[in-house]
């Protein structure tokens, strides 16, 4: 009864789809979140009759008979389309419009990347993210600064008391990857470089294909509920259909068992 196992691969694959959809929906309001999409491919084929075998002296079987053995998930693919921007008016909220990630450093020195630009300052005035990880290159806001302004190219300037001219105190750089879908998601909106993502390419926002920065905005999640709910429905129905195969296979086995009374 191959069908029992085939249907169970189907159920497992659909479970993956529902899990992915659930995570997308759960993160519909997460700043800088990028949705994922489960993708599948057919498994292998058992050949019952090879194409091209002779059916008589002069004729050959044109197609052969192959029975597929099910399905497997091939990828849970992160989709880096842009989320919509929300104005917050907060001086340290930054959104990247286009390609690029902010680089952060974890306490152990690991460099990680994020799309979440809702930054804060810590007790020393250093720009950090909500978990306290430092933005790289490190920028320290002077304690007496009255106004912080961040240009679309990442230049950070402040106005200090008694001064009319703004002083530049740093330059925010962003990082691009050739294959952002290959980054490893660590959770907490953070991504880690992998062999599949390619080397990080650092640069000034707005140059070499990197997106520009918007101060006072955050990038919302790119999850679209309509799409997710459609995927949820198709996933559930496919799960249903595969479970029907299992019950039917079971009934048919029972029928054969009834041959012997």
């Amino acid at each position, binding site marked *: 009864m191959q*069908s029992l196992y*085939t*249907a169970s691969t*189907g159920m497992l694959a*659909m479970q993956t*789809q529902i899990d992915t959809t659930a995570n997308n929906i759960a993160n519909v309001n997460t700043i800088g979140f990028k949705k994922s*999409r489960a*993708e*599948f*491919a*057919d*498994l*292998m*084929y058992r050949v*019952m009759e090879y*194409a*091209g075998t002779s059916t*008589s002296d002069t004729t050959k079987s044109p*197609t*052969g*008979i*192959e*029975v*597929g053995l*099910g*399905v497997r998930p091939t*990828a849970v*693919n992160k*989709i880096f*389309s842009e989320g919509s921007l929300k104005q917050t008016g907060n001086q340290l909220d930054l959104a990247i419009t286009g*390609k690029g990630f902010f680089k952060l450093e974890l306490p152990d020195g690991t460099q990680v990347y994020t799309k979440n630009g809702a930054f804060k300052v810590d007790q020393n005035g250093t720009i950090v993210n909500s978990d306290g990880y430092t933005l790289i290159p490190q920028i320290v806001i002077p304690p007496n600064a009255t106004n912080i302004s961040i240009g679309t190219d990442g230049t950070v300037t402040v106005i200090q008391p008694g001064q009319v001219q703004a002083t530049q105190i740093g330059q925010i750089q962003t990082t*691009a990857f*050739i*294959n952002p*879908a*290959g980054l490893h998601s660590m959770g907490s909106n953070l991504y880690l470089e992998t062999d*599949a993502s*390619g*080397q990080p390419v650092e640069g000034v926002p707005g*140059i*070499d*294909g990197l*997106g520009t920065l918007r101060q006072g905005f955050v990038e919302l999640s790119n999850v679209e509920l309509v799409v997710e709910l459609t995927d949820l429905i*198709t*996933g559930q*129905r*496919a799960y249903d*259909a*595969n479970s*029907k*195969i299992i019950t*039917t*296979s079971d*009934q*048919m086995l029972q*029928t*054969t068992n*009834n*041959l012997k*009374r």
Partner: protein
Amino acid sequence: MQTGYYSSAAGMVTQFNRLDTIANNLANVNTNGYKENNLIVGDFMRLYKEKRDDLPNANNTKEAAQFINRTMAKAPQIVDAYTNFTVGNMQKTSNQLDLALSRDNLFFAVKTPEGVRLTRDGSFTLDDEGKLVTKQGYEVLGNDYAKSKEGITFSTTDTVINIDKNGQISTNVPGSLNLTQNKKLFIASVDNLKYLQKEGDNLYKLDDMKRMHGNEESGAVVQGFVEKSNVNAVKMMTQLIETNRLVGMYQKAMDAQMNDMDRDAIEKIARK
């Protein structure tokens, strides 16, 4: 002994095989670019007629009679399998690297370690070197692949990737939105779709590569869409019910022959 008993048994086996195919179709109901498989069950009359037509002897000889008898004992069986290549539903994803083909005899060509394979699953991605690859990491081939042996490469400065209906890829000049032409996708068509052999991983194998041709003006590439599976769930469910009921019927037939009739024969004849 009772030929009918073995025919029914063979009918049952056939239905179990059919169930395997239905199960595979339903397992792939959400697989991008998957094409439904169908089986043809050879009925008795057709097999009989086919065999009679190529009989070696005149119909009334002893050898011919033996031949027909042998043929008649052949029970229902799966004689053929075919893949339904109709185009599946198109789902809009707005993803630059999702491509679909809007006609049923066109394919993307990819380079695998075993050679060139065809696929309808156009949800591509880039690898760490910027090459356009499938989700299994196989390079997607451009129309110059025979000469260059290379796939299609993008760089981090390409923010806009535009692919027109013939598969011509254009990317923006760094720092502006003016497009320059990159490579062109190889869009394959096949002499006859029945030569394609499914290999798993959404790939099709072609034994004789001469049967594949390139299409410069296909007009069928759609960017930002993926082609979903073309499995028709209603049809599959109907077939599932049918399979289930047929097995029940064969069981009844076998039961009647072996249990009821034979018992009658043994009990009643023995009493006389």
